[in-house]
């Protein structure tokens, strides 16, 4: 979703008004959350294939054992009761138990989530650090060769099937040049107990020779792959808002005051041009989670995406159900945070209330 207009109705950022805004937004999340829970619950009951038969496989199972398993999993209850029980569990932080590993879904999620978060953050930093300057340069050189080249590259990135992009990068950098590893988060030579779950930090803390370098080299390609579409989107968005801002009176005033072009563009214009960009970055969070599924799948990155794809292959309903809920919950929360940030960045909205 490129070039999306900023959302109206951004919040106040100070005082009791802001507090009530935050509370209202969070309360509104609850029905949405229940609706998602309901839909995944219903959807997954419609899947052909019995989870117990999948577990027992070809060997078959005695009717007594089958009944026992069905009872154990609560599958012998009426469906509406199963759903209410499910909501009750959710309210107590119980997101179910994986059918294949017997570990609580929430535990598996919190174990794997740092890997996805590390990848997503690194991709977002990559996208912002390259995308904003690229957009600014393109806008200030509007109509030149530089502008056309940058926007051509951005359009290509924006149109990229990232799973293919990942394969190409692996082919070129890993297979042909041998510069980066093909998959995983760190070389198997290194083992240490995770402390933060972030491989970069953990490998640094471990103090083992080469562990940090190995973690970095594993992160590079996935970062580029996942960051490509956000990078292109941010560059395009920055360019178009920058062009708008550069025509405004206050930019002309700043120029007329004799400020250096760097100050005019870097401070006066960019600050205002970034407001819609922040919104777009927020909207990218959902895209980022979707992209993470593909990126993790290609690079065998042990994160949420790989976990969810595997849960589908194993028909591990509770994992799929709980995983989707948790991912959606995080996306919703981040969108609220972006709304708040939007108010901080835009004084016009802040003072209007």
């Amino acid at each position, binding site marked *: 979703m490129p070039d999306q207009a900023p959302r109206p109705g951004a919040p106040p950022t100070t005082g009791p008004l802001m507090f009530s805004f935050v509370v209202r937004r969070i309360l509104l999340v609850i029905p*949405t959350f229940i609706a998602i829970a309901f839909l995944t619950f219903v959807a997954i009951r419609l899947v052909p294939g019995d989870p117990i038969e999948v577990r027992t496989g070809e060997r078959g199972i005695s009717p007594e054992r089958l009944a026992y398993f069905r009872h154990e999993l609560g599958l012998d209850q009426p469906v509406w009761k199963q759903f209410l029980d499910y909501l009750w569990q959710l309210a107590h932080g119980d997101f179910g138990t994986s059918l294949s590993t017997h570990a609580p879904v929430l535990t598996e999620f919190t174990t794997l989530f740092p890997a996805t978060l590390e990848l997503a953050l690194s991709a977002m930093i990559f996208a912002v650090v390259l995308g904003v300057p690229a957009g600014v340069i393109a806008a200030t050189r509007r109509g030149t060769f530089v502008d056309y080249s940058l926007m051509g590259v951005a359009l290509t990135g924006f149109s990229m099937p990232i799973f293919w992009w990942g394969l190409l990068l692996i082919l070129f950098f890993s297979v042909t040049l041998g510069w980066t590893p093909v998959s995983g988060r760190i070389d198997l030579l290194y083992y240490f107990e995770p402390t933060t779950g972030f491989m970069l930090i953990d490998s640094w803390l471990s103090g083992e020779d080469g562990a940090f370098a190995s973690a970095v080299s594993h992160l590079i390609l996935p970062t580029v792959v996942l960051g490509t579409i956000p990078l292109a989107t941010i560059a395009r968005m920055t360019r178009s808002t920058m062009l708008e801002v550069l025509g405004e009176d206050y930019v002309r005033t700043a120029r007329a005051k004799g400020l250096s072009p760097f100050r005019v563009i870097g401070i006066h214009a960019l600050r205002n041009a970034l407001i819609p960009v922040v919104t777009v970055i927020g909207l990218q969070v959902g895209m980022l989670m979707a992209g993470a599924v593909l990126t993790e799948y290609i690079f065998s990155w042990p994160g949420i995406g790989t976990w969810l794809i595997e849960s589908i292959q194993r028909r591990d309903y509770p994992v799929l159900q709980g995983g989707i809920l948790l991912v959606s919950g995080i996306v919703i929360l981040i969108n609220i945070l972006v709304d708040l940030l939007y108010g901080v960045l835009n004084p016009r909205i802040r003072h209007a209330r």
Partner: protein
Amino acid sequence: MPADRTAPAVMAPPGAFASFVRAFAENRAAVAGFFILALLVFVAIFANFLAPHSPVEQFRDFVRIPPMWQEGGNPAFPLGTDEVGRDMLSRLMFGARLSLFIGLAVVAASMVFGIVLGLVAAFFTGWPSILIMRAMDVILSVPSLLLAIVIVAVIGPSLTNTIVAITVVYLPNYVRLVRASALTEKSRDYVTAARVAGAGTFHIMFRTVLPNCMAPIIVQAALTISNAILEAAALGFLGLGAQPPSPEWGAMLASAREFLQSASWIVTEPGLAILITVIAINLVGDGLRDALDPKMRRS
């Protein structure tokens, strides 16, 4: 402001469509995209006649033949053959048909349902509006590809189900867009005039208001086609979309992964086809947006 060099001295003011075409034609990138897209559509429609071979026929004596410009290439298979000896060019041509069909089907479906739901939400405030918009919020809060994956996991992987899943994913965009523009248009004088003239609600919804909401919907449609093609390919790649031996571009990539090293063209070609198609559609989409957006139009 570029003057219109070709315009005759005496001419009636251009109609909306003529000025749109002129604004679009001024954008060279958009025109280039349009011609690439036209070529792709041509190939897709006449794939039966253009393709040198059947997309599924396996030439067992010609397995993994490289493209003809590489050493060991065979002019009978201009772009080489895949891991079971199927002609890549023919598969790509039939794949164009599938990808463009998916894109169009998703747009048509999400547009029709989106317009109806969006108009209902705009005109029937109260519970229909609340129900529709809340439902759209729910769909929007699940990341797009994840939602498509779940839907396909439930209803089973196939080409048709891919279309259904992606349609659901893109529905909220249309509903929101249609509702927002319909709400603005609804309070305009011409709508009141139509109402006074005795037009019924449905007439006002579909005949009076809808035509005036079409510009943003058309721009959104171009974006949806390219995104739908990408997502369908992603699903195919994950093994959750079109199933082998279908020449769907994403599915072609899925089965080719293991030949990345030994026969890289099996991997590069379908991806390139996706990329070129999506770029062409996005160029056209950008051109449409600039030509339809009154702010951007140079007068």
